[in-house]
């Protein structure tokens, strides 16, 4: 039923080829339909390409540059972009190109881990609240409200300052940032998951499964979660970009990652005093940071368009 209306609305697919039209006649799952739609979306391919480049940068920076990010040539401090240092050098005479490449790791790690944890925690708590209902829902919802009421950045700043003296290694600090962003980021996903589980619960197929005697765990795992997690996946993808920006904000304020760790936020913080005289020092890290955030937002847009036929 929805298949035909979708196909008429969709401007990207004027004509379906014969074999595709043939196998579409029997019920096609929402997931398969979404995947098909994604494969046709240029937005998806552009963002996927950008993200692959950044992920590769994070895993294997030496693939992109042979210069060490901590090799300081003070004589050439603040020099402009040249054939020697493509993006110029900063105050310490570090090669900005090399630092921008090595800086990807912190952002990508924070983004991916925070998204994973917020989806797990938020999804689980939201599903629990909606499935059980009653007083359990009441208590869980109030606890969600407590964390939701603390402004996101403010909560993260407080948490990072409270733990300022512990976990000071590279991965320790990244872990701290992930923890801080997760603690104050899960409530929005929990609320979203709760409301979408509530819309799935009254469906006939859930009642039928219950009548057939399936265990609650089985109902949740194979019927509720697959049908209710669409909206959460979309928001989580867009949030990934927001978490990367939040990490940079914390580093910018001087309480996230700190030198000698190389990160885009730290680079921007270091070079912001030179905005008037040496703008190239702030341009490149900002550009890479923005491109990464942009790539995840575009991916989220593409996924939403694929999962939600109404918005096409």
């Amino acid at each position, binding site marked *: 039923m929805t298949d035909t209306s979708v196909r008429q609305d969709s*401007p990207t697919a004027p004509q379906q080829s014969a074999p595709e039209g043939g196998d579409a006649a029997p019920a096609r799952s929402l997931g398969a339909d979404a995947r098909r739609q994604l494969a046709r979306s240029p937005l998806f391919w552009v963002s996927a390409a950008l993200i692959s480049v950044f992920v590769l940068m994070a895993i294997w920076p030496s693939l992109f540059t042979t210069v060490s990010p901590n090799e300081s040539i003070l004589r050439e401090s603040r020099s402009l972009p040249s054939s020697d240092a493509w993006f110029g050098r900063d105050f310490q005479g570090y090669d900005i190109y090399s630092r921008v490449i090595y800086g990807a790791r912190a952002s990508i790690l924070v983004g991916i881990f925070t998204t994973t944890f917020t989806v797990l925690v938020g999804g689980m708590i939201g599903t629990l609240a909606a499935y059980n209902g009653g007083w359990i829902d009441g208590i869980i919802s*109030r*606890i969600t*409200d*407590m*964390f939701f*009421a*603390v*402004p*996101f*950045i*403010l909560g993260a*700043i*407080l*948490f990072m*300052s*409270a*733990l*300022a*003296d512990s976990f000071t290694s590279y991965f320790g600090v990244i872990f701290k940032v992930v923890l801080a962003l997760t603690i104050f980021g899960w409530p929005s996903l929990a609320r979203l998951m709760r409301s979408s589980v509530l819309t799935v619960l009254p469906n006939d197929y859930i009642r039928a499964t219950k009548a057939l005697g399936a265990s609650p765990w089985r109902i949740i795992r194979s019927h509720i979660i697959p049908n209710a997690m669409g909206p959460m996946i979309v928001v989580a993808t867009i949030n990934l*970009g927001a978490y990367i*920006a939040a990490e*940079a*904000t914390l580093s*910018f*304020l001087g309480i996230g990652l700190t030198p000698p760790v190389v990160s885009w936020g730290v680079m*921007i913080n270091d070079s*912001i005093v030179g*905005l*008037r005289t040496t703008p190239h020092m*702030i341009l490149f890290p*900002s550009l890479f*940071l*923005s*491109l990464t*955030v*942009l790539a995840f*937002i*575009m991916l989220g847009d593409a996924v939403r368009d694929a999962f939600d036929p*109404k*918005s096409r």
Partner: protein
Amino acid sequence: MSKYVVRRLLQMIPVILGTMFLIFAMVFALPGDPTAGKCGERPCSEAYIAKYYEENNLNDPLPLRYVKYLGQVAQGDLGENQYEVPVAQDLEQRYQVTGKLALMAVGFEVVIGIAAGILSGMRKGRFVDNLVLVSTLVVISIPIFVIGAVGQYFLGVRLGWFPVTVSGDATVYQLLLPAMVLGSLSIAYVARLTRTNLSENLRSDYVRTATAKGLTRSRTVGLHALRNSMIPVVTFVGYDFGALLGGAIVTERIFNIQGVGGYIFRGIQTRDGVAVVGAVTALVIVYLFVNLLVDLLYGFLDPRISHD
């Protein structure tokens, strides 16, 4: 209606207490010696430290300290900060500045965001629509501290259109640029939200009926489609007001605004727990009340939603 308000207010009590405890626990876990620097360059005497700990309940376990603090707050006393100035007095002054900033940002959000959203929603797929989509995407992906610093440099220093920093009085003119920066991300979100909802509603049956019975285009859009499209936008703006109050830390730092954000940040850095807890608690309470207000607004925008 009044039953609903009472129930919501009752639900708010445990949330406020819980959030305050959360903040209280984090603030008092801040590392460092609370008496450091209290006695000039010498270390404080044993007797002074003992007296200080006793006066500030620092020897008690955390829950007991929290209960004592609540008792104090219930009497309307937010305590004194490190300089022995009452926190309430500081907050009164600083909330005026940040409140003005956040309200102006919300104003930009509503005016520019909704206008851009209507423009692009009504001409979906045309040039204006694509322009709005691309420019909002750009604004969303650039971090706010870069927008702030670059805006300050080009519009303030180079072109001289706006004051570069904000003085203690924080006049409306001085706050124009910071408010625009603070609201920039939300302007983009509001524009996109308005666009999506408006274009969805324009395709709905009731709009077709309204057109068929001969209503003018402006009446169809303004009275029917737009009003129904505003519910998610109002929700967003409402939630955002609280986030703007708290998120102003970065903007306040860039433009040297003497607001709550800067107060909290300095409080954290100087380990001024009483000041931080008071400021954040006030923020959370404002936020929760604005949310309640937003939920009550639904009823006016969409009569189908009732709170009985």
